[in-house]
Every structure is written in C-alpha cells, then in structure tokens.
C-alpha cells in the first residue's frame, strides 16, 4: 500500500521502480533538488510499505514576467505539472490521480488561476488520464519535443498544452473548448553558431517576434539557459547534441 508525502532528498535512492522504466527520464541532481528547494510542497511522492518510491509528481508555481503582459501568450500566476510518473507495477491503481489531486490542492493553496502541463500528442493514455481528471487541451504547441517517439525521421513532435481551472478561476477564463484547433505560432528558426549572437536572441525575444532557436552545444549555452530560466517564459527540451529552446513572446 502507498503513502503520499512530500519529497525528501533521500528518496532519490529509492526511485528505481519508477526510473528504470524507459518512459521515465532520470535527470541530474540539480533538476530534482531545485524543485525541493523552491517548491517543497509541490514535489509529492507515493511511497510503498518498503520505502520504495512508486510514483511522484513535480510541480511549480510561476507566471510570465510582467513586461510580457501585453502578449497574447502571457501566462498569469499558475501551477504547472513538470513531471508525473508511476512505476509500472503500480499503474492502474489510482496513484496518478491522487498525486495530481494533491498537486492541485497545493495550486489552490498557492492561489493559482489554473494548472497546466505539456504532453506528447501521441501519448493517448496520458491525455485520456488528464481528460478524466478534468483537464482539457488549451492549445497545440508545434514541435515542442525535439524528437518524435513514433517517427525518428521527424523534426519533432507536437505537444498538447493542457489546463484545468483552479478554484480562483471561478469563471473558467483560463481554459477553453476546442483547444486542439488552437496552434501556437512558430514562424522562425535561428541557429546560433556564435555565443555573441546571444545578445541578438535577447533582442529578438523582446520584440514580438515568435521565435524558435536551435542552439548547438556552444560555450555560451549555460548563460542562455540561465537567462531563459530567469525570464521564466521559455520552455526547453533536450536531446543529444542539440538543444532546442522555444521562446514565447
């Protein structure tokens, strides 16, 4: 049987049942620890009677920076599901539902307008799970993922940006029907071959030009990543050799 509680760093020693599953990525310690340091209430684990972590959800509370307020893509104060995983041995037992519910409660405590998440368009099992839990598609983000699990030759795979209103959103202003028909614009790609071009990236993002930047492993990539994180309005996903940054304007 499982108990739900906040994450503790030592849990990283007991995540084998979740993370040996090929569908669950194992990251560097900084990834897990930053959630523990910043949003300890939004990193929730399901622990079995032997102390194994059989599921976990990682979430955060954030908004776009103030100067983006005029943008149609401005994200107000909201909660976000970064990762949700349940060990294969414990699937179909309702653990994912409880973890999501707990995170939503934390979202309500944090006074979020809505909870959002990104999911591969091909992951119908997960999409059905979220729909059953009250989420709906808000928009399609083109080529959000750098790879396509079903087609290795494809440039990337689209994601569904799914949302659910939290208690604060009494009028349902932050969700919509037919979100599948709303695609996020993406018109231009910039390949950075020179770290000095980072300044241009910053400039571009401040203009209202939708942008996708393909960044090869360059000496300056860390600087860009930090800058992106500090802005809080950029999603990133990684694959080997190439890093893609999707800038929201």
């Amino acid at each position, binding site marked *: *049987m*499982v*108990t*739900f*509680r*906040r994450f*503790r*760093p*030592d849990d*990283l*020693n*007991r*995540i*084998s*049942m979740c*993370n*040996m*599953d*090929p569908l669950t990525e*194992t*990251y*560097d*310690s*900084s990834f*897990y*620890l*930053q959630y*523990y*340091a*910043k949003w*300890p*209430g939004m990193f929730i684990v399901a*622990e*079995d*009677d*032997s102390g*194994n972590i*059989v599921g976990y959800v990682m979430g955060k509370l954030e908004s776009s920076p103030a100067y983006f307020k005029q943008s149609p893509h401005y994200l107000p104060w909201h909660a976000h599901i970064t990762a949700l995983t349940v060990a*294969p*041995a*414990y*699937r*179909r*037992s*309702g*653990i994912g*539902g*409880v973890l999501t519910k*707990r995170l939503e*409660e934390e979202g*309500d*405590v944090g006074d979020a307008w809505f909870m959002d998440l990104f999911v591969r368009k091909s992951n119908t099992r997960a999409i059905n799970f979220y729909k059953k839990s009250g989420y709906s598609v808000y928009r399609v983000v083109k080529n959000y993922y750098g790879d396509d699990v079903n087609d290795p030759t494809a440039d990337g795979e689209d994601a569904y940006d799914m949302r659910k209103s939290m*208690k604060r959103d009494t009028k349902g202003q932050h969700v919509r029907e037919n979100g599948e028909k709303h695609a996020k614009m993406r018109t231009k790609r910039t390949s950075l071959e020179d770290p000095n071009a980072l300044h241009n990236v910053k400039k571009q993002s401040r203009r209202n030009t939708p942008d996708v930047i393909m960044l090869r492993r360059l000496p300056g990539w*860390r*600087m860009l990543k930090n800058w992106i994180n500090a802005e809080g309005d950029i999603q990133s996903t990684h694959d080997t050799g190439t890093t893609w940054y999707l800038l929201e304007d």
Partner: protein
Amino acid sequence: MSSKIPESNLRLESGRVSHWSSDCDVAGAVENAARSQLDTPADQRAALLAVEKVIRESDVIKDSSTIDLYDWACTGLGEDYSKTIGALRLSFVKSAWKPGNANQEAFKSFYACVANGDWENAQKIAAIMDQKLPSESRPHFSNILAYYVLSSRLPVTDPRKAMFRTLAQRLTEKAYGLRDNTPNSKDYPPRAIATEEEMRLWLKIQVETRQSDSEARAFLDKPECNALKHLSEGHVSVFKEIMSLLEQHQVWEALFHISQELFDRGLEYLIEAQSSTESEPDSMTDSERKKHEAMKVIQEFTASRSEELSEVKKAAEARAFRSAVMDWSLWKQFIGAAVQLQDHKRALKQLQNFVTKVSKSAKLPSIYKKQMELANLLILFGRSQSNTSTSDENISESRINHLVAFVVANYNLVSCFDDLKPYLEQLSFDETKVFLERIGQEGEKETNDTFQNLMLLTLRLRFRYLFTSSPKSLSTSAGDASSRCNFCQNIVQDGPCFSNRDLRARIDSEDVDPFADMTIIGTTCLLKMAGFGDERRGSTMESINLKLVLWALSWLNAKYSRTPQKNQALPVFMAKLYLLVGCVPHAKMLWDTLGVKNVTLDSLGPLFSDRLSTIAPGMWRPTGSTPMYPYHKHYMDAIRQNIPRNIRTSLELGNFTSTLGLLAFQDRLTHSCTMIVSNVEDRRGIRAVGGKPGFDAKDDPLLRLIDNQKEFVNVTDNAALPNHECDPATLADIISIGPGLSDTRAKLSLFTEQFISLISYKEPKDFKPIKPAQVAELERSYIAQTAQSIHMNFATPFLRCLNAATDNETVPVLTDSEFHYFTTINFLLSHAVLATECQWNKSAPRDKRGSTIVAKIAAQIKYQTTSLALVREDTPETTRALCHFSNLHALGMLRESALAVKLTAGFLERLIAPAKNDAPKWLAEDVKALQSAATEANDFVKKRIKALSDAANTSGSLDSISEYAFGGLIDGSKSVNATPATAADGELETMIFVAAGQHAGFENTIGEILDSWQEVAKGWNTVKLD
C-alpha cells in the same frame, strides 16, 4: 563559481572603482584573480596569500564585490573557508555593511558562507543582520537556523554546543509564542512563526534539542503540540510529523486518541466533498442510509462553524482532514498504537468500524478501496498478534479468508505479491498449507477465465516459494542432523526444497506476465540447487554446480528474447547473473538498457559496478575516461555545486526544512559507500592496466571531504530485483559476487588506498638532496606517522571482519578473497610501521612483533592461490578451465594482493637505498621474501589468464559446454518427447531444455556466453603484472 561572476562584477563596478577601499588594493585583487588562472602554483595561490595577509593584518575589505572576486580566485585551493573568505565576509558585514539599500550584500555574504559549509561565520553574520533588521523575519529565522545547524555540527566537547542549542530552542519558543498571542494571522509580527516551513523548523528544533525521551514526551504533551489544531490550520506536514514523533516516543494513548478524532471529523469532510459533487448514492442500503443521516448531523455542525472560520480557513481545514484521513502511513501508526493499548481489542474494533464507515460512506478511488482491504488485514493480524491464545481457530480462519479474498480481488495487480508478503510471513505452517490449498482451488475454478486461473496458479507458486525460503518449512528432529521438508516430508540434504493465442493477447494487454514470474521462481530454485545461498561469502567454485547455472541462464535468456518485458526485473536479474559467471560484456549490454545514470547511480550503480575491476580489469585504460567517471561527475556536481546552490535558494525562499534536508543529503552523499567504492574501483582498475590514478587518495577532491569517524552509508536499492525470499534475505544476497556494500568494506578499501598511495610515492628523478641521509630520516619519520595513523584507522573495521569470520551469527561483509586481501594489507601495514619506526642501523634486531609477519603475508597469498585451483569434482576435464570464469573475482583479489606486496617491497627497497649501509639487515631479507611471494602469485595469475584465454578461444568449446549442460539432449541420443520415469532420469533436465528453447535456444545462450568470455579474457591480457 563561474568565471562570469568577476567579469560581471567588474563590469558593474567599473563606474565606481573610486569607491573601493583604498587600503585593500582593488587593482591588486584583480591582478591576483587573474594570476589565479595561470599555470604556476605561485600564481594560483597569489589570491589566497593576499587574503591571508588581509586577515593577518586585521584589514577590512569594504566592498563585497572584491570579496566575491577573491572567493572566485581561491576556489579549489583547498583553503579553510572559515579562516579565509568566510572571515573576510564576516568582517565586511561587521564593519562595512549598513542596513538600508545594501541589505542584499549582507544576505549574499550569509549565503556564501552557508554554501561553503562555513556555519561559524554564517551564524555571526545572521546574528548581525537579525540585530540590525528587527522588522524583517528572514534574518531572524536564518539566525535561528544557523544556531541550530552550528549546535548540531560542533563536537560534544565544545561548550558552545549547548549554548547554541538553547538559543535556537528559546528563539523558536518565543517565535511560536508571538504567533500564539496574535489572534489574526494577518497581524503576525515579523519575528512570529507565520509559515508552515517556519512551523516545521520550530518543531524540529524543539524536539531535537530535547535530550532525553522523557523531555521529548513532555514537550509532545504541551498544548503547542496539539496535532489536530495544526491540522485544522491546514498544516498536514506538521500534523504528520507530530504523529511520527508520538510513534517514535511510544505515546500510544495520545496517538490513538487523535486517530478517533481525526476519523470522526475527517469522515465529515469526506462526505461533504462527496455530497458537493454528487447526490446521495443510489446503492446505499438502509443501514448505510441511517449512517449517512447521522453524518449529516455532523455536516450541519461543520457548516455552522463557517461563522467562526473564514471560507479560506475552512477550505484549508477540509483539505487537510480529507488528506489525513486517507493517509496510509497514519493508518499504520493508528493500528500500531491500538495494538499497544491495554484494551487493544476494543481499540482495534473501533478502527475496524472506521474502515467499514469509510468504505461505505464514500465513493472511493480504487487505490483507497485497496487501502481499506489492507487496513482490515493489518487490524486482523494486529488482533491475533495481541491475542494470547494464538491457536484461536476463528482468527486463523478469518486471516486466511481475508488473504484469499484479497488475492482473488487483486490477482492482476503487479503489487499483489508484495502487498501480502509481510502478512504471509506471519502465518503458521498449518495456515500456509490451508492458504496454498485455497488459492489452488481458486485457480482451478471453471467459472474463471484462463488468464485469471493462470495468474492465481502463478501467485500460488510464488507464495509456495516464499514459504520454502522460510525456516518454518523445515523441521529437525532431535538427534537427526538432516532436516525434513514440512510440505513434502522429504529429507532435505542441501538446504530448503516449477499455445494459446488468446492467452498471449491477454497477457500483452495486462501489466503482469505470469510466465515471467514462473521463470524467475524456477531459475531462482535452480540457483539455490546449484549451491548459491544467502550464507555464501564469495565465489567458492568447489561448491557451485555450473551446469545448473547454465540451465538458469538459458531459461532466462529464452524468456527475455521471446517476449517484451513488462518491467525491469528480468534484465536486472540477468545482468547480475551474467556478472556472476564472468560474462561482463553481455551483462553490460543488458545493464545499459536500464538507463541507470545521474541520481540513480548512488543507489542502483553498485548492482552492476561493485567489484567490477576484480572481474573485468580490461574495461580500464591507463589514461582517459574510466567506467566510473559518471559516478565521480555525479558526486562532484551534487556535493560541490548543485546542493550548495539549492541550499542558497531554499534559504532565500525561507524553505528551512529544505535547507536542513539538503545539508543532510550533502553529508550523506559525502559518506556514501557507493562514492567511496566507485573511487576505489577506478583506482584498482587503472592500477591493473599499469596506469596511475589522477590523485593520491589523500588529495582526491571527493575522498578528502570524508570524515573517517562517521558511518559510511550504503543506499543500494535492491527493489529493482524480484524478491521472493523471506525477510531479511533478498535475491541480491544469492546472485551477487559477495556481500553488498557496507561501512566496514568501504572503510577498509579507503584506508587501503591511502596506504597504497603512501607506499607508491616516488621522488622525482631529478630530486637530489644535499643531505640524503637526513632527508631519508625525515621521510621515514613522516611515513612512520602516516602509516601508524592509517593502521589505527584500519584496525577497527578489520577487527569487525575478524569477529565475523569466527562468529557464525554475524553476517559477513566481505568475500573470502577480500577477507584474505585485507588481512594481507593489515600485515603489510604492520610491517611498514615496524620498518619505519625501527632503529636504523645494520645490526638492529628485528622487533619481536615482526618476526613472523612476512611469513604470514606469504601464507595469505599462498592460501588465495590454492583456493583458486579448486574446481567442483564432477566437472568434466573439457570444461574445467571455463569454470574459472565464474571465479574471476578471486583472481582479481589475488592480483591486488600480489600488487600490494610488490609495492610494499618496492617501497622498502627505496627506503633502504639512500642509506643502504645503515639499514637493518633483516629489512633487506624481508624485501626479498616479499618480492618472492609477489612474483609467485603473479606467475600463477599469468598462467590462469593464459588458461582462460585458451579455453575461451578453443574450437569446440561450444560443443563441450553444451554437452556438459544437457548431455544427450544436445547430441540427440535423448529425445525431449521421451518421458523419463523418475526425476533422476532427467525429467527436470528435459523441462529446462524445452523452456530454454531446446537446441537452438541453448546454443544461442552459450554462444553469447562464449563471446563474453573471449572478450573478458582479452581484457585480462592487458593486465600488467611485471
């Protein structure tokens, strides 16, 4: 710290250089920082020397950016932060910082000290900030935290320890009092506890600063610890912590009392939530409806409280109660408390009533339905545990009924076996028999479909294996040395006694695969029959039947290659087994599919990498990247970079429990057995192929952080392996090369590496001292002291091993080969101490203690060599050499022993050389004897490597090993269709042969094994022995 910091600081400050303190030369700071990036040691240490000068002269650097610059320039020099940069930061905050616009500079100094583990200066800075910023809460709680951390880090002998502890306790008490005396949360003063994180810090400090159990109990009895009050405020984590503390301090009555109130009120909220989303359930019976009516009264009461509770508070309370009432860890605590009460029958009955109420009053998700079923089981087993008449038939029958009902309801869940395992282990032998019979009957019902029956029968098989691994399955009569199996009544000699398209489609659609479970059970039985048991201390080839191991491998391989895997149990199991028989490349191929990396290396890495250098030294190269590089990177990044950075973040955000959690995690990682052993593995591997490790053990950036006095922690996670053994045994005990990681082994390995670094040191060739004799004497004195210190550290864990070797009750922590290796090291250390401490003249007599040391070392080496020659008697001549692949670990440890002896001999020879005429005569004799012992062992290793290489590459190996494993079934003289009359005639052999995919399947497995052996043998050929 990144090089960008000083750059950006300089850019920022460039406009106001004139404001920098003139007494601490800015240009000098910039110059020193620039020099720190140059190649010569003098340049690299220039900044540190400048800092030391500032401190020595009691100067103050009045600009924090200059200190940042020095901080960056001194990174990695191994300086004591608290005496250098930390001291600069304190003097800056003390003398130069003024509250106002520059508050951030003081915080920055505080965070920098914390991130560098300098809590002494951090506390002083926090205290100054707390004093100068009375209207801010962050400095106040930072100060409290610093007092607490410092008190827990100071040695017991330091009088400040008690003082800081008391200060932390008093300040949190005061902060709690300020909160308690302020009715409205909006009016909390800055120094009052306001957030849940501050509340958790208060609780932690209050409990951990109480020194005795009675003091802690008295604290828990105080009104501040009213758990339900905290829950009403929405602080679930505080509530759960108080519950755990009550359990830890065995305050059973209070714990149980809280459970009653929690369930009463929690149930109201559950029903309230239900009724807000749906109308009254149609499926209610009359009695349930009555209960529901009763609950409505309670709901009305709750609703009436809305006047006194704001909507927000009420929502928080409701959320907290709903969460707690379904919390499995709390249920376990409550049931545990009920069992301990005097009137436990009544208490357990009450809890059972709650289970019924919760089950019927609310529409539960499936996970909570299962939770209620397990709660019922726990209560039932609790009742029989507390019942004095254990033979009570009603209870026994009830236990079995509930267990069978659970299996029938949850047979298709992967977790079904693990959920029931702890309860099954408590059954008596008679109960197990009835239980198995009942499950067997359930699995034969014609009303079930094939899949259900197959699953039930597989579960029965798994349960049967579990019972077999329990001592309850065996009985020994007086005067009879052998045991009798209680199930089949047979005498047990060697220890305790497994195409349908629709079915395939059904299995593909389920999370469980009964055939995978059967394969695991079957192969585990084969391994036990082969001689692998939980008391094994290492590879003792004379006791292992390799034929049965080959059967197990071929069965597993056939299952693995035929069907997709539902989980990772099979590949992990196979990877371990392939390692056990020396097939490292194939094991690595399987292991690489599991994605073990980054944070999982600490807990899962040892399943593959432990003792790797001893079986496959060919995986290392003298220079370049090593197999253990990902480990070093993970630990370096986490300990030096990621954790400090996040400690700072958590402090900035006031998440104090995260700060404490991160500090504990950093300490734990620094003393991780995996970290130490992976480091040792690399050292052994690099040495084996003639390379030199990048750092001496004492200079290694990770090893030098270790505090030898602390216990090293093993966090190996065996959950990835299937486990059907009765507690505490695990499958890992059976299929590992030896005992798992331990504090003892990690310490012995670490001290051994320190010793090897000491004796391997050679002066540069161009080092020509003017007074060689004097220098030699100084060197001897240094080595004597260092060796003595290592020997003293080594003695404690080694003594534990000696005791374990003679005491059958103690679980061994080393393989036999490791035990002899460390015994050899112990003698070598003794010898090095005696040789360097002795009187240095030619006729000096040998110390009495040392008269037999060299002979003992030679005896240890001889013993290891002799053990390696043994092979099980019934192994045919044609496959004997191949059997040695299963004993590579022993060969690796012999090689390490021989190398240590050789290095010691070389060291003594160098010691004698500068003052040859004065060296005691006996020392030269010892050097010769040691060299001779090492040469003899190395000759043996060379011969064995050649034999392994020849055996793996001889044509016909595949045929001879196939015939050895399956005899007539391979050469066609026996048919799989002919049913043998008895087991002795080969019934089992035939069944395994079929399960392994017959001729083609088995040859495929053997082919892979041979390929691996060839590659391993090739790797061993790169080992340098001369």
